């Protein structure tokens, strides 16, 4: 499984010093080797069940007989087997919680014998820069546990590549990283300070590996405490720095490096209706907002998003702001942001589609864009601007004619491929279900209108019925539609 990653060692003087401080922990009794058989959905042929692959990663036991690992170790899993060190037996595991936005997952093993003699690891603090850490896992898929060492190089926001749409706090360590033991613990002073999860391929950078630090892990564990994962919450606003002198004076602000200007607010997001474009945000939960969009936290200047990063769904933040020069305080109840998921990798869901008359309709998603290598200018525009232009208001799902299974019934429709469905028989199409509903209604003609095209595609009911079985047989269409569950609401 090339998705999995592990850290290797770069030795240095500082490390040797640090190692002396680390008390011995019997990690062998905490770490597990996870073998996942995954089936990745086939967005190109959505009724197919997808290709099967096997991968290896690491995980470790935490309190409550739970195994903590990376989401990408167990994504799209059909079967998970868990092994302990020095134990020939394989146990069947099951994903209990998965958080694709922060690449974390909890795996359960139902056989209670498994956890006997296993020692749960405990979470430690954010490690200091330059302090030494030990990294455990199964690099390049080996059978036996591997240990490597490195130091903490940097602590910053990083893009989490698993979803590709999320950024959270991450810790960079100088150990080389290899595929194969993602999910393995990074220890310092006998406590977990992170989970190894991603790195660069050798031709980009070396000695740069990343781990998920404990504030992110703790937030995940707190989120699932009620038995459900609710995802990260977000203010869903765009703040802009206020460091230009003319801008500050034009807004009537003193020269005190305080405050950021709100440039856009997502109407459906947490701040919709409460914060307006043009507001100047002065403080958040009592932390002064510095004009370059940072706040001081634990003695360090960090991105102001970090305040919200640690909160859960339904938590509140208090924001002091200036609106038209008048001071105001608003309380924001935090909610996850949904529209941005269109640009996020989708896991653990079957591709949703409707096939009618050889025309395949699918909602726009990152997986779809990648499966078809879509290059269409209009589609890319809708994809890239789905959030900032609030396209989701009109089209919670952007339903496209993604593919045409050639047949006499659709012989002249090839030019409509990759167009966005606007209407079918006068009914506005907001989601894929609307497409299924429209084709269910009896009509002599099905008139499909696309965005930006005035000429409709027309299917005659009799011709579609005549072609139906032929298309199903020729193309091995297992089911004609899968409406599944809707991701974007």
């Amino acid at each position: 499984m090339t998705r999995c990653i592990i850290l290797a060692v770069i030795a240095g003087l500082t490390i040797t010093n640090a190692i002396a401080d680390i008390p011995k922990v019997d990690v062998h009794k905490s770490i597990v080797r996870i073998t996942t058989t995954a089936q990745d959905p086939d967005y190109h042929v959505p009724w197919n069940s997808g290709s099967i692959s096997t991968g290896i990663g690491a995980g470790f036991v935490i309190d409550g007989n739970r195994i903590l690992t990376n989401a990408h170790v167990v994504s799209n899993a059909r079967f998970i087997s868990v092994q302990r060190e020095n134990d020939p037996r394989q146990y069947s595991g099951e994903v209990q919680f998965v958080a694709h936005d922060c690449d974390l997952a909890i795996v359960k093993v139902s056989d209670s014998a498994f956890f006997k003699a296993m020692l749960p690891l405990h979470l430690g603090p954010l490690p200091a820069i330059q302090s030494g850490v030990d990294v455990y896992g199964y690099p390049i898929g080996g059978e036996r546990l591997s240990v490597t060492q490195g130091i903490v190089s940097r602590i910053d926001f990083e893009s989490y590549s698993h979803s590709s749409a999320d950024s959270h706090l991450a810790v960079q360590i100088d150990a080389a990283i290899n595929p194969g033991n993602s999910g393995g613990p990074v220890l310092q002073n006998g406590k977990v300070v992170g989970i190894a999860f991603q790195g660069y391929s050798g031709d980009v950078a070396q000695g740069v590996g990343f781990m998920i630090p404990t504030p992110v892990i703790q937030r995940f564990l707190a989120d699932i405490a009620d038995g459900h994962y609710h995802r990260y919450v977000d203010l869903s606003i765009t703040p802009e720095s206020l460091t230009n002198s003319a801008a500050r004076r034009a807004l009537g602000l003193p020269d005190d490096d305080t405050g950021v200007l709100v440039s856009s607010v997502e109407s459906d997001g947490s701040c919709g209706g409460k914060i307006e474009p043009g507001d100047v945000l002065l403080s958040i939960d009592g932390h002064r907002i510095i004009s370059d969009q940072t706040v001081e936290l634990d003695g360090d200047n960090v991105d102001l998003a970090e305040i919200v990063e640690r909160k859960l769904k339904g938590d509140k933040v208090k924001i002091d702001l200036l609106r038209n020069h008048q001071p105001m305080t608003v309380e924001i109840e935090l909610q996850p942001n949904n529209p941005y998921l269109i640009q996020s990798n989708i896991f653990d869901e079957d591709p949703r589609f409707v096939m009618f008359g050889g025309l395949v309709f699918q909602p726009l998603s990152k997986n779809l864009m990648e499966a078809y290598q879509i290059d269409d200018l209009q589609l890319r525009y809708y994809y890239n601007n789905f959030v900032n232009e609030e396209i989701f208001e009109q089209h919670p799902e952007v339903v496209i004619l993604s593919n045409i299974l050639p047949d006499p019934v659709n012989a002249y429709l090839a030019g409509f491929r990759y167009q966005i469905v606007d209407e079918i028989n006068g009914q506005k199409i907001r989601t894929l279900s609307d497409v299924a509903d429209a084709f269910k209604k009896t009509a002599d003609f099905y008139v499909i209108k696309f965005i930006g095209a005035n000429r409709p595609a027309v299917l005659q009911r009799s011709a579609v019925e005549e072609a139906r079985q032929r298309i199903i047989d020729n193309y091995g269409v297992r089911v004609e539609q899968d409406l599944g569950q809707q991701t974007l609401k």
Partner: protein
Amino acid sequence: MKFLLFCPVWALLATSTLAQQTPGVSPKATPTVVPQPASAPKEKVAAELKGGSVLRVNSTDQSYDFFRPWSKKAPVNRRGLGAVIDGGEVLVTAELVWDSNFIELEKPETGERSSAKVAVIDYETNLALLKPTDAGFMKDLQPLDTNGQVKVGDHLSVVQLEANGTPVSTDALVTSAEVGHYVLDDFSYLLFKMSCPLQYRDNSFTLPIVDDHHLISLLLRYDPRSQTIEAISTPVIQHFLKETEHESYAGFPSFGIEFAPTRDPQFRHFEKLSDAEGGIYVEDVAPNSPAARADIKTGDVLLSIGNRDIDADGDYSDPLYGRLSITHLITTLFYCGEKVPVTLLRHGERKDVSVELFHRPPQDYVIDPYVIGHAPRYLILGGLVFEELSRQYLREWGPAWEKEAPQRFVYFDRYQGDLFPEPRKIVFLSQILPNPDTIGYPSLNYMMVERVNGEPIYRLEDLAKAIEKPINGFHKIEFDLDPKVLYLDAAKVQADAALLQKTYSLPLLHRF
């Protein structure tokens, strides 16, 4: 630049896929392939050329740099052959002389030279007429006739010159005549394709193609791998020359529709089009175009234009070239100012309308399809560089500009008719020249300006007017994208202007 002519054909085909907008009519159907009549090849030689019907044309061209609109790019020298025609004028491709600073005509045998001026230039059909500044220069030359006519299957001669001035002619077989992309995106006219084993010789741009003493065609491009020529066709040259006889050159007419074929039987049933008739479905009508003024509407099915029936693919039957796109009929066989009868079906009812044809100049588009021959418009305020969006600007990203240029602008360009129905221009921030007034602003670019000091901005003139009225001493500039608003201190910007101009060597802070 010498080898531009010889760039492979696939690269040129890639740009022609944008044939979406409406200079005239954009066919969405595949171009017609004209069947090749079985006629015996004519025996041809180049001996007749000795009288001096071609001239060498040397042109020094210097185009504007749209990334730095205050300056020009490095000058380039282009060479080509011009065809001497009646009236003491020389016909060349527009490409040879556009944005020219200096043009020189040279008699190949004697080397005698004269400078020349562009009399008429049409960038869309890629044709230009040159006139020597010394009228006597043309005296002893033998003009080519321009009233010739060829068919598919005819043999022609491509004229080249050896370095010593001796004319060389290469036999070319006309293999097809079809409507295709000329040199600017979106502008398509009748093309001749020819099969011809051409060798690279002394000159590059503009090779005349003749039949005896008739000028038939000018070479557009040559693909050395397949040994095929694409050339400007006789009807286009004849239309151009006829139009130049008028006091002011009116250009080639446009119609102003986008259309789709009506082949699909299910679509025909739905639209209640009888099986016997052809017809094209009007997808879009450009505002203020000839079609719009004749009250042609989206959803109409056009059955005939100028009493020629249109088939379901948008072709008519041409007496010379067989099935051809109606683009040729509208742009080339008719002239600006002509009233053309059109029969259409609207909601099943036949209707006859008369369309008065006229040319749509590039400035009439929201985003000019080309800016050639005059300077780009810009305004610099406090280091913020504002320009008006044009295809010429986007083309600065090179041949792959549709992929490489800012995608939001490419989208604006492609869908300008839908996105911006009212007449206007797109004023945008092209870059920031860092200076004390912009400290704290990130390096921003490619953002469309919506309002300045509260006034909506539809063109650079609006911007110039709006900055005369700062709000409380500040310019408030609003954009379509984050950060949405930038402020500048009006007095400080004015005080710093001279320094900015000096620092970045800006000859002018605005030009429009």
